């Protein structure tokens, strides 16, 4: 019964969430500390420190209240360094989008070439194998130094990290198109270009979109780190700026937002994948 299972799963999800929030709430309950006699001194400290404690992790209630406050006004601009969460997310998405599209423009044609020609595959393979495992952030100092522009550098980092899954998946998808189909195309004397677009592309499309989906996931992971490194704008900068203020409520809020946007991106590519998949 898939319907009753859906319901059960939803209930179980809710229960897990409730347990998690409950545990969080209990773990962050303020412990009774010594109250300072000197009120003038206590006024100079944070609330926890005034009670003789280290400051603590915020509870779920504080985070929820803060979330509401931030989401109510997501597009404010109070100067270069203080802008709403909506604007920061838009900056990050724009960077990811630009880097991702550039990577797709390079990776998909190159992947086709590699997939169709075993010679090129063998010639390029060593380079791909060496470049693939490099953490994209390791490119950052070099990029800043050579590109001489921090915004372009972060786009470059996204480009570098999202190119490999797309390239490898495209090559694999193209190389593993069923021989029968290629043979049929050959007997019908289809031209090379027409063969690429009408036979290979539809056949390899599901694998290619899988590569794109993986790339997008990685790009979204990397942008946060890249923006924390370079600063200025974006969701990564938001995290860094709130870390600077040791405001964990805002950091947790940002973490949740990053998760939600990442999920939506993945969902979108999941839909795209379904669209291009066919059943034999």
């Amino acid at each position, binding site marked *: 019964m898939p319907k009753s299972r859906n319901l059960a799963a939803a209930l179980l999800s809710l229960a897990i969430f409730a347990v998690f929030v409950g545990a969080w709430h209990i773990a962050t309950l303020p412990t009774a500390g010594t109250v300072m006699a000197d009120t003038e001194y206590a006024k100079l400290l944070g609330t926890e420190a005034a009670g003789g404690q280290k400051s603590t992790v915020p509870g779920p209630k504080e985070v929820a209240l803060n979330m509401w406050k931030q989401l109510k006004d997501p597009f404010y601009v109070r100067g270069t360094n203080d802008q709403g969460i909506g604007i920061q997310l838009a900056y990050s998405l724009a960077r990811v989008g630009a880097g991702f599209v550039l990577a797709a423009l390079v990776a998909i044609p190159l992947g086709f070439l590699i997939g169709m020609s075993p010679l090129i595959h063998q010639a390029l393979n060593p380079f791909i194998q060496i470049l693939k495992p490099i953490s994209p952030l390791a490119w950052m100092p070099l990029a800043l130094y050579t590109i001489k*522009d921090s915004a372009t550098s972060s786009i470059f980092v996204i480009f570098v990290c999202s190119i490999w899954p797309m390239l490898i998946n495209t090559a694999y998808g193209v190389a593993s198109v069923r021989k029968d189909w290629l043979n049929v195309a050959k007997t019908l004397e289809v031209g090379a270009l027409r063969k690429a677009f009408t036979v290979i592309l539809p056949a390899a499309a599901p694998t290619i979109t899988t590569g794109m989906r993986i790339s997008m996931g990685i790009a979204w992971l990397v942008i946060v780190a890249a923006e924390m490194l370079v600063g200025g704008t974006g969701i990564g900068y938001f995290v860094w700026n709130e870390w600077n203020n040791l405001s964990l409520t805002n950091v947790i809020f940002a973490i949740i937002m990053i998760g939600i946007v990442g999920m939506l991106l993945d969902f979108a590519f999941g839909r795209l994948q379904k669209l291009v998949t066919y059943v034999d």
Partner: protein
Amino acid sequence: MSAFKDPFDPAVKLGPCACGGHASQHEHDAAAAVPAAASDDLYSHFVESAVMRALFPQDGARRRFLRAVGSGTALSAISALFPLGVAKEAFAQAGKIEKSSVKVGFIPITCATPIIMSQPMGFYGRQGLNVDVVKTAGWAVIRDKTLNKEYDAAHMLSPMPLAITMGVGSNAMPYTVPAIENINGQAITLAMKHKDKRDPKQWKGFKFAVPFDYSMHNYLLRYYLAEAGLDPDKDVQIRSVPPPEMVANLRADNIDGFLAPDPVNQRAVYDGVGFIHLLTKELWDGHPCCAFAASKEFITTAPNTYKALLRAIVDATAFAAKPENRKQIAEAIAPANYLNQPVTVVEQVLTGTFADGLGNIQKVPDRINFDPFPYQSFAIWIMTQMKRWGQVKGDVDYAKVAREVFLSTDAARLMKEAGMKVPASNTKKFSVMGKEFDPAKPEAYLQSFAIRRT
């Protein structure tokens, strides 16, 4: 004495003395002797005037010549023949700002107070500048973004422009410090658990954080430890950690303490994770910390913008130097757009009435102070420490680098205009932890330390 007449004005008569304003050379000398430090402007007019007088001993001939060709042509003709560079700079003084939209990078610490406050409090606007102050994640990034020209000028640690100019830790590029941002204002903070270890001799095996390798913080901490007999490279570990991450690391017990810029120290107290062991003022009262830095290229290609910017910074520094303005400044720079700190933390730093983390309220009004004058002896001291700890190898032409990087002349002129007291000399003697430093003998000073890497 405003009688320095324009020698390129055909309507002006030049008198018999050098400047033309006096009845005789003798009288001129007497008048000139009073304001001994005539500003650069007056000085260059004097030079031009002298040149014109030499070319045209007869005043009538000079006036006829100027009427015939115009003063612009005359000037260019004469510039071609005479080194009128100084004079040209003086003309540029009144000129138009080349670039009214300027980007200045900063790190969110109170050292950057003059750079930051100039935006919300309108010091940039008053100079006709539209300045975007951009918060930046760390020193390496601010250096790279400034070298990239994404920023026109930036907040840097005062040793950084020296390091950049000498090509230490990056490619060599001529860099300048037109103004120091702040003096004092740093502190050593230790984790709460070390409450009873107030003697540095007990600190063997400690892990410390400083903001950057090329920072006053690094040199002062090393100096302090070495005076206590600890070798900073062997007996303790010193890491470079960006200021925002310091309190988080102290809290997580990753480090035992740090010598950091404020508000980091005060923030550690505010969050109950550390206490202030000492203020760096106790090591060297009046030490420089951060600097307002610009590339030599910027100050030569956009001299008027540079001057307007520097004037704004000097004015802001003069304003910040007055204790009665500090509360107002704290409110202006604490919001999320700038430091992103609770107002009380910034206020405690700027006013010097602060909780030390051990239950006492201390009152140290000059905990942080503001004095823009870039003494060249500061630069020389910094270079001795760079060499002491092996960051620079070989011979260093201390005086030359100091002169090229720490631009005291520009700061002096603008400080005078802002109504501040200008020091009589570019160098001064000072003492660090009771030991006198003579800027004339840097090598001897360096050799006098028992613990060093040379």
